């Protein structure tokens, strides 16, 4: 069933018409969508119209959105106003992924509008782990932010999301913690598609589901963990006898950096007898909820490969002087590189106002660029 993207790739990838056709095809068959993995990320690529547009006819939005699984669609109907922000979250996640991997062979590039990252995600590799984590993190971030902007009607003291702590909230106590709300909602939404699958215990697919759930959690935890606590003293004469603290979301770049570290130290797992993931190398410590896990080794990202979905590094820019991953030697996998000169335009000598007034001069310089063969 999931040969949709493959089929399209064979018939010539990248043309707009085909992408559109495929999109229509996916929208028509939700059954197919449920099988096609990860495609809620596509919310980050296709702009969702502002929810205000959909207030009257509530239904269309959710059925029109590509890439939602059955239970995600239900959540969408319940929380229509959240969908834009989930899209935003996916977008920030993908952007951050691309930033963090800009110097790697696999650079988190999006392939098309439905499967987003292409077939590479079918392999339970470290890269897949990172992608799941960062996009889950993006959703927590975006929902919390929307919550602060007052855009979400259920945010705050929502009965639906935090029923257990409600009795204590008499007259607002403990409400308004939007990071917590973002975390809870992201868990409901992102994990929904994994939870609805029912694979036999111990099967490969089951292992993959467990891996995805773990990495989603790792991403959400990262946002939660990196959120700073700020406090304000406001007792008598400003003394600290009364102190109030609140969570403050960290810059998403920091979340990306943190997750990148977790990517580097991700744990290789396999499915155990009890249907749980266990370490392949027992000498290491068990991964915590903040750590990433993977079950497959990464495919070769050097060469284009239709089966694995690897795009290859042909045509990528590289750094001639660097000895790291972005260096031409490693990036081009020893195939060599082409050199050419381009003009680089920069804004300089600018005069700013705090928001939207900039007066700049344009400075141009000639730079060397290297591209993998």
């Amino acid at each position, binding site marked *: 069933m999931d040969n949709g993207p493959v089929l399209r790739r064979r018939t010539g990838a990248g043309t707009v018409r085909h992408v559109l056709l495929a999109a229509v095809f996916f929208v028509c068959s939700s059954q197919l969508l449920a099988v096609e993995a990860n495609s809620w990320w596509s919310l980050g690529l296709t702009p969702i119209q502002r929810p205000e547009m959909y207030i009257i006819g509530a239904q269309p939005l959710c059925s029109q959105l590509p890439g939602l699984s059955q239970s995600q669609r239900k959540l969408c109907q319940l929380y229509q106003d959240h969908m834009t922000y989930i899209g935003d979250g996916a977008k920030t996640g993908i952007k951050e992924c691309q930033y963090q991997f800009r110097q790697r062979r696999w650079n988190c590039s999006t392939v098309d509008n439905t499967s987003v990252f292409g077939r590479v995600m079918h392999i339970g590799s470290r890269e897949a782990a990172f992608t799941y984590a960062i996009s889950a993190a993006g959703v927590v971030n975006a929902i919390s932010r929307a919550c602060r902007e007052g855009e979400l009607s259920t945010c705050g003291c929502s009965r639906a999301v935090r029923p257990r702590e409600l009795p204590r909230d008499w*007259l607002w*106590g403990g409400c308004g913690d939007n990071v917590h709300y973002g975390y809870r909602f992201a868990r409901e939404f992102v994990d929904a598609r994994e939870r609805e699958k029912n694979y036999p215990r111990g099967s490969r697919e089951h292992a993959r589901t467990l891996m995805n759930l773990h990495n989603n959690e790792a991403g959400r935890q990262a946002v939660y963990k990196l959120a700073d606590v700020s406090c304000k003293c406001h007792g008598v004469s400003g003394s600290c006898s009364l102190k109030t603290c609140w969570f403050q979301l960290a810059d998403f770049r920091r979340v990306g950096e943190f997750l990148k570290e977790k990517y580097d130290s991700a744990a290789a797992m396999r499915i155990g007898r009890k249907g749980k993931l266990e370490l392949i190398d027992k000498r290491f410590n068990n991964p915590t909820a903040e750590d990433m896990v993977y079950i497959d080794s990464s495919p070769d990202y050097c060469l284009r490969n239709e089966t694995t979905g690897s795009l290859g590094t042909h045509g990528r820019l590289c750094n001639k002087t660097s000895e790291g991953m972005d260096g031409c030697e490693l990036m081009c996998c020893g195939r060599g590189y082409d050199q050419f000169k381009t003009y680089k335009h920069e804004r300089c000598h600018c005069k700013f106002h705090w*928001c939207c007034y900039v007066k700049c001069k344009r400075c141009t310089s000639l730079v060397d660029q290297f591209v993998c063969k």
Partner: protein
Amino acid sequence: MAGAIIENMSTKKLVIVGVTLLLFQALAFMVGGLIAPSPTTSVNYMATKCVDASKHREDTKWFMPWGPNLCDKIRSFDEAMAKRIEANNIVFAVHIPMQNMEMSPWFQFMLVILQFDIAFKMHNQIEEGAVVTVDVGLAYRDDMFSEWKEMVHSVEQRKLHCNLSLPKTYENEGRYYDCDHLPFMELGSVAHKYYLLNIRLPVNERKKVNVGIGEIKDIRLISIHQNGGFTKVWFAMKTFLTPSILIIMIWYWRRITLMTRPPVLLEKVIFALGISMTFINMPVEWFSVGFNWTWMLLFGDIRQGIFYSMLLSFWIIFCGEHLMDQTERNRFSVYWKQVGPIVFGSFCLFIFDMCERGVQLTNPFYSIWASDVGTELAMSFIIVAGICACLYFLFLCFMVFQVFRNISGKRTSLPAMSKARRLHYEGLIFRFKFLMLVTLLCAAMTVIFFIISQVNEGHWHWGDHTVQVSSAFFTGIYGMWNLYVFAIMFLYAPSHKRYGDEQSSGQCITGDAGANSGEDIQLTTTITHVDGPTEIYKMSGKEAQE
């Protein structure tokens, strides 16, 4: 007439009283920890960027971030750049509270903190000592459909304290500065259901207004208010405590007036302590639920200040009156040296409070910390108050030390007495020390609980129950000082027990000369005051033999 109750009460009864007080103490902690929610809640808001398209500013126009009448908003400033919208046309709108909620007078107060998200740009960095000029309007309404009514409009200046923790390179463009949060607004009462803040950052290049403040990406506000649930528990507690302290106070004063001699200084001070406790207990805050009394917060501060300075004075005088030295006491003027710093210190804090909260009565956006002169002034008030506090504690420690040294000095003469008498004296000393210890314990408890509630944010889980540590701190400590005052008034009230012809008067073992009729054993040889009964603790032989 006899001595104070603390001396004449049997140990058994004293233990019963102590246990009862302890139970009440535990109850006070539990009320806060288990029933009340946390004392305050903060809510984060992100200002919505609205576009004010009109050429001329209308003061009556308010911009709503969401809802039916929402403004023309932009998602980011890149959008504004594309549409050629200028900085002066952007209005940051924040609606307090969030959607589907409403504020309530039970919140008692609301303070708002301002925070800027400023992105680092190589060419547009924050200048040294940058000042933001904020043009802000606050409006309110009590239902979702009526017009917004302006409450205040003000132009405020706030100094930016921002730094970038990363190297200033092109690589880090777009990362945010770490900015200190700025005090923004403080409301002494939350009488309305909905509030709307419209903030503008007008730019005027000629006058250097809002120039060099970096690239502002967002404005965040954090509003803090007292939880309604906590307020209710707090009021209930005050309402319960007021009559109990009032009754014991009346009972105490009746006992004093029943005596033949005029009351001594210590008795007067205890009575004053009772009055200030009742003053702070009086649940006048109930009115704040019905009326829009913005000065209630300031009034609360003043009441608290009066009580604490009274308590501190009481300790000094209590120690002084138990100082078994030769100087004549029982006059308030003797203590000016020690009470002076208290009065001066609390006066400083009062002035500071008036400068901040007093001005806020008219302009809620005023902050003494916003200007340099104000900051210096505020700091100097606080430092002076701190110095006074240090002085006070030095005096107090010295006096407590003296009392204990004198007591142990007296103790050496105890073995020379008859057994029964010695036992009695030892009992008295023990009870006095016990009270000193209770005071110390109360102070220690306050400090310890303060530290716990500071270090341990939020709540503890204890089985199925969540314990709100900071709520328990507030109700527990408040209950504790009430019980303390209660206990002092009870234990230091003159006793009714009669001991034959010779009567002891005064309280406690203040005086030391024992002019005894039965056995001529004197504890000390300190002077006996001419006006007699006050500081001498006389004891009948009969009683000694009991």
